[in-house]
């Protein structure tokens, strides 16, 4: 069973102009979490702080958008995070150019049953880890 949250937000600008909002620690601190450290490569470390709560995880996908505002132009950042006593979930942040600007699509999913059994797939064997996530999502 997969628990899933989806949200969309329209933003002014092109995906390339908005990419720093998803990747620049300074931007991220102003909206995502109180502290953010992201290693921007597949398998890279991801750390987040919300007040006293720490979440750790890893980066699954970093696909910067092409420049320009051609509709459909897409950039995507996916990572996994997990608080100490909670199950892991996967966050996908996608910027897609549309006629008026850009839509940010957020999907957070928790593939409950399987993940609770096997724990957070770690990037240790990077290729395995990276394949692992999407396979679980589809499960």
């Amino acid at each position, binding site marked *: 069973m997969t*628990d899933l*949250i989806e*949200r969309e*937000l329209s*933003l002014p600008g092109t995906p390339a102009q908005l990419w720093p909002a998803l990747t620049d620690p300074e931007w991220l601190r*102003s*909206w*995502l979490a109180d502290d953010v450290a992201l290693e921007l490569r597949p398998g890279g470390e991801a750390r987040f702080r919300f007040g006293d709560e720490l979440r750790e995880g890893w980066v699954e996908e970093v696909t910067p958008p092409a420049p320009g505002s051609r509709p459909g132009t897409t950039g995507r950042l996916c990572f996994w995070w997990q608080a100490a006593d909670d199950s892991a979930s996967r966050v996908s942040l996608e910027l897609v150019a549309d006629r008026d600007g850009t839509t*940010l699509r957020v999907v957070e999913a928790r593939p409950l049953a399987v993940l609770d059994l096997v724990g957070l797939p770690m990037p240790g064997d990077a290729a395995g880890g990276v394949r692992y996530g999407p396979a679980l999502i589809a499960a």
Partner: protein
Amino acid sequence: MSAAGDRDPAGAVFEALADPMRRRLLQTISTSPSTATELAGELPISRQAVAKHLTALSQAGLLQRERSGRDVRYHVTPAPLSQAVSWMADVGGQWDERLSRLAALGDRHRERPRH
């Protein structure tokens, strides 16, 4: 086997959770079981509006009523579904907050570009 007139439980759940105020109510009640009056004191809506939301959440099977003296206290239904539901309410609420901060930044960005 299901009696005629049974509602699709998952449909009722998602309908009940489509409203941000109901998600907030559910989140509050999951932290501590509450009465409608207590909830109205904590949230920016009337007791009447709270009661209406509580009815919708109860009908979706998300809340249980327990009478204590003259009060009715609401609990989150202790079932596997309610775990998924409270996760969704919790995580959904967090993203609502994050995205409203980002939207505010976007507005500022538009008025005074950084680059």
